C-alpha cells in the first residue's frame, strides 16, 4: 500500500475541525464518525505495525512500538498547544467554551502524554538498555506532565468558577514555555533521543502504519476532548448560576 493512502483519512477530522467554528453543534452529530475512524485508524495502524512491517535493521522488532509511541506524544503536544490557544482565547474574551475546552485538552493531553512517555520508556529498555535515561527529551516530557497535573490540581483547588477560569487561563498561557522546552531540549542538551521523526528518517516500511495510527489517535483525541468538554460544560451548569435565575429586572429606583 502506498504511504499516502492513510492521508486521505485526514480529510474527515480536518474538515470537521474547520467546520466547527461555523456550526457549533456539529460534533454532537458526527462524533461517532470520528470515533469510528479512530477505531479504524488505530486498528489498521496497529495491525500493519504488528504483522505487516518487517523488523528493522537496527532496532529489530521493537521498532513497532513507534507506531503507538509517536502518535500519542504528538497528539499530547497538540492538545497542550490547544490548551494554550483556549487559554489565550479566554483571556481575550471571557468565554466558558474556551475554559471548558482548555480543561478538556489539558486532561486529554496529560493522559496521552503519560501513556506516550511510558511507551517511550518501554521502547528504551531493549534499545538503550534502561527504562529511563536522564535524557532531556524524556525528562522535559515528564516535567510537562507534572505541570499539567498541577494545572488540573489548581482547577480542583479553586472553588469559584470565575477565578478558576482566569487563573488557569493564565497558567495555560504561561505554560506554552513548556512544550517549547520539550521540543528544544534535544537541541539545548546533547540528547540520545532522535532530533525529530520525519518519514525520511523513520523506517520507510513503518510510515504507512504510523500514519494510520497517527490519524486514528488524532480522531481519538478529538472525540475524547469533545466528551470531556461535555462533562466540563455540565459541571459549569451546576457551578455557575445562569442569568435566567435572576428573574425579571427590578424597577428603577
Amino acid at each position, binding site marked *: 500500500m502506498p504511504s499516502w493512502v492513510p492521508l486521505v483519512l485526514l480529510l474527515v477530522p480536518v474538515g470537521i475541525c474547520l467546520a466547527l467554528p461555523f456550526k457549533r453543534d456539529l460534533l454532537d452529530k458526527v462524533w461517532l464518525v470520528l470515533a469510528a475512524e479512530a477505531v479504524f485508524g488505530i486498528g489498521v495502524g496497529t495491525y500493519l505495525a504488528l504483522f505487516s512491517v518487517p523488523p528493522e535493521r537496527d532496532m529489530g522488532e521493537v521498532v513497532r512500538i513507534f507506531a503507538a509511541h509517536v502518535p500519542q506524544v504528538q497528539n499530547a503536544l497538540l492538545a497542550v498547544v490547544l490548551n494554550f490557544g483556549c487559554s489565550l482565547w479566554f483571556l481575550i474574551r471571557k468565554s466558558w467554551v474556551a475554559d471548558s475546552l482548555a480543561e478538556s485538552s489539558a486532561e486529554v493531553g496529560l493522559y496521552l502524554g503519560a501513556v506516550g512517555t511510558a511507551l517511550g520508556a518501554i521502547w528504551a529498555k531493549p534499545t538503550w538498555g534502561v527504562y529511563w535515561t536522564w535524557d532531556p527529551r524524556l525528562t522535559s516530557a515528564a516535567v510537562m506532565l507534572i505541570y499539567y497535573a498541577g494545572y488540573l490540581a489548581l482547577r480542583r483547588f479553586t*472553588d*469559584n*468558577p*470565575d477565578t478558576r477560569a482566569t487563573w488557569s487561563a493564565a497558567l495555560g498561557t504561561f505554560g506554552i514555555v513548556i512544550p517549547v522546552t520539550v521540543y528544544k531540549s534535544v537541541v539545548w542538551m546533547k540528547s540520545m533521543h532522535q532530533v525529530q521523526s520525519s518519514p525520511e528518517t523513520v523506517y520507510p516500511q513503518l510510515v504507512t502504519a504510523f500514519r494510520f495510527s497517527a490519524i486514528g489517535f488524532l480522531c481519538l483525541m478529538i472525540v475524547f476532548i469533545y466528551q470531556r468538554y461535555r462533562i466540563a460544560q455540565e459541571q459549569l451548569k*451546576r*457551578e*455557575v*448560576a445562569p*442569568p435566567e*435565575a*435572576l*428573574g*425579571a*429586572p*427590578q*424597577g*428603577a*429606583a
Partner: protein
Amino acid sequence: MADAAFHIVDVSKRYGPRWALARLTFSLERGKSLLLTGHNGSGKTTLLKILATAMSPTLGKLTVLGHDCHEGREPIREKVGLLSHASFLYEDLTAAQNLVVLARLIGMTDGEADATADAMLTRVGLAKRRDHPVRQFSAGMRKRLAVGRLLLKRPELALLDEPFGELDPQGIGEMEKLIAELAAQGTTLVLATHLVDQGKALTTERLHLEEGRRVEARA
C-alpha cells in the same frame, strides 16, 4: 446622572452557583449619605466591593463619580475610599509606615507623606503608637488605623463596611464623630452596618438588601 455619586443598573454578581447581587438598580446623589442594611450574606459587602471596583460585576452597568467602570477603574479608585472587613494593613510595618506607603501612592512627596501620616495618626488617636508594628495592635486600634488610611485619601465617596465592628463604646462614639465630619465636608457616604440606630442618625437615605435584592425596609 452627572451629579450622581454612583449609578448602578441591573448589577449582578455571581459567586459560583449563587447570585450575591441580583439585578440591583440604584443611584445615589453626590453629598447624600446612604445606610445599607441587610442580614449576613445579603450582598452588602459585595455591593461595597463592586462600588470600590475591588471586584467587577458579573452583569450590569456601573458608573461611579461620573466614570464608567468598564472604561478604566483607576479614575474611580482615585476618588473612592473603602473601609473593609480586611484592614489592608501590613502587619510588619509600623502604623506610620503603613500610612506613608499609601500617601506616596496617591502622589505625595516623601516629606508631605510623613507630615500627613503624623497628622492622621494624631487624628485617629494613635500618635503614641506611631512606631509600633501593626502586629502588636488590638482589633480596635487596627480599625482606627484603617480609618486613618481611608481619611488620608480624602475620598469623594467613602464606603464604610461595618465601621463600628470591633470598637469599644468610646471608639464607637469617636467613629460616629468622624463619620459626621466626613459627611459635613461634603463626602458622599455609604454605610453598611448592623447598628441601625447609629446608622440612621448619620445618614439620609436607606437601602435594604435581602438575598442581593432591594426590598423595602421594615422598621
